[in-house]
């Protein structure tokens, strides 16, 4: 029973820990599936915390049920936390939706740098991050492999849309990583998974401001002796909300209408602006 008490304590303390500025800016109320901010958890516990007395070996939750891109969005940091039955090690893998990405390569032509090469890959994750409670290489070296893939291993599975010799493909692949890393979409080192009291763990997942939309997957693994003994996956929807979502939606699906709206907006703004200027 001690672990349930500890969990209750954790849930009661966490909301207070979340009252950092990044969350304070948020406009919409926290989603219903989360315990209310600042208050003790109510009887309808979050779905990942079973009320049945079964004892799963791994329980996880996210500090936010979704990443909402509002007009004030500047990136977000989400906390994944949970507890597990010791002994064991925790690995967390976050993966963005897969899509076709085209990598362009510049070359100097007559002194000017311009794109001369291109290569498309299918099934490229928009975002990929992996964190572990112990150095990852050590955990994976012990044969945990299989399902848990390091970024390099994950990217070795992406399929080139057009065939090319493997040396060239490898260059484009590393170019892809380079760009994605710069954009913060393949964070090189996300904070380690920290374990407290041997059974509570937490890890911060950083998301940059230029974040592709879609359903992300956050998956936590419990490893024991290099083998996966439990895994819990949580979907994490990332999407624009509010005014930004409206505008982006119109622009994508109602292009001509959006164009007319943009023209009217500019005509009106120019007319008002002109009137103000002439008054001065």
């Amino acid at each position, binding site marked *: 029973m001690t672990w349930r008490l500890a969990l209750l304590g954790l849930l009661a303390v966490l909301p207070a820990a979340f009252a950092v500025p990044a969350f304070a800016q948020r406009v919409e109320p926290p989603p219903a599936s989360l315990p209310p901010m600042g208050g003790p958890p109510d009887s309808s516990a979050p779905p990942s915390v079973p009320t049945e007395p079964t004892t799963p070996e791994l329980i996880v939750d996210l500090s936010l049920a979704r990443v909402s891109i509002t007009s004030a969005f*500047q990136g977000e940091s989400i906390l994944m936390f949970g507890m597990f039955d010791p002994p064991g090690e925790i690995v967390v893998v976050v993966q963005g939706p897969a899509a076709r990405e085209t990598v362009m390569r510049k070359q100097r032509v007559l002194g000017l*740098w311009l794109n001369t090469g291109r290569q498309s890959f299918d099934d490229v994750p928009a975002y990929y991050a992996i964190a572990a409670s112990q150095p990852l290489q050590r955990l994976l070296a012990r044969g945990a492999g299989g399902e848990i893939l390091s970024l390099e291993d994950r990217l070795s599975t992406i399929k080139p849309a057009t065939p090319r010799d493997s040396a060239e493909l490898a260059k484009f692949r590393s170019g892809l990583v380079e760009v994605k890393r710069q954009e913060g979409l393949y964070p090189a080192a996300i904070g380690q998974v920290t374990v407290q009291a041997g059974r509570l763990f937490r890890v911060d997942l950083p998301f940059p401001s230029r974040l592709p939309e879609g359903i992300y997957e956050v998956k936590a693994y419990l490893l024991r002796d290099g083998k996966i003994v439990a895994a819990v996956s949580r979907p994490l929807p990332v999407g624009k909300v509010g005014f930004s979502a409206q505008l982006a939606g119109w622009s994508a699906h109602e292009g001509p209408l959006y164009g007319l709206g943009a023209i009217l907006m500019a005509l009106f703004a120019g007319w008002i602006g002109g009137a103000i200027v002439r008054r001065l």
Partner: protein
Amino acid sequence: MEIYLPIAEQSMNVFILLGLGAAAGLLAGMFGVGGGFLATPLLIFVGIPPAVAVASQANQVIANSVSSLQVQWRRGNVDLRMGLVLLLGGMIGSSAGVSLFTYLKRIGQIDFVIAVLYVVMLSSIGLLMLAESLRTYLKRRRNPEAPRGKLHTHYLVHRLPLKLRFYKSKLYISALLPLALGFIIGILSAILGVGGGFVLVPAMIYLLGMPTSVVIGTSNFQILFVAANVTFLQAATNGTVDVVLALLLIMGGVVGAPIGSRLAAKLPGVALRGLMSVLILAVAAELLTELLRTPSSIYSLSTREVLP
């Protein structure tokens, strides 16, 4: 204060964007041309994707030209016939320009083409203006009461067919000339997001030989409709018009324009043109350096395609 731009898909400081709009408005007020040709490269410098910068700038140009067209129209400074011929060329040119833009974007060369066109255009205009203002300055110093030349000179182009009478401009020239001019401005407008006033105005004076009084009003007439066409087509085909970005630029412009016109009233014309040419050349030089310098990464990503 940061604001998320829904189409550019990134957050950006509001004051940077307002400041850029104000700077463009300042130029518009000072020189009577839209500041688009400087605002677009500056937007690209601060990290807005070139495709979005160009399309949103076209949206801003509408606001800029509608307020100045209002004034010119009331004063009767618009040669409607000339404006319509220019506009016909402009509509064809801008529609072709947006198609060309879409094609270049698809093959991944749009950023390069935008940069090269800007370098060529800005450096030639900057050098011409600099030479002109230096010449005027030296001439004035030597002979302050130099007589003005003829209204305009006649070249080979005046022998082209399809001659039309433009009463307000006191011209009898081939319609092909303004048509071609409008076409070129339309292409520039579509690919570079500029109104094109800084090319159109000198061309109307020196190439067509229009009287200066109707040049600003008539060019504004053409620019307004061409910019609207570009905005519409960019939104409909590429979805690259960011209205939040455009609105911030417009708001900045409202503040900048009156300051610019007040400055213009105080400074002598030669000094103004000299100043502007230096500014234009500086932007051209920066763009050229970007093209010549070894990039920090030779790799980049083009648009993500979510496959069904």
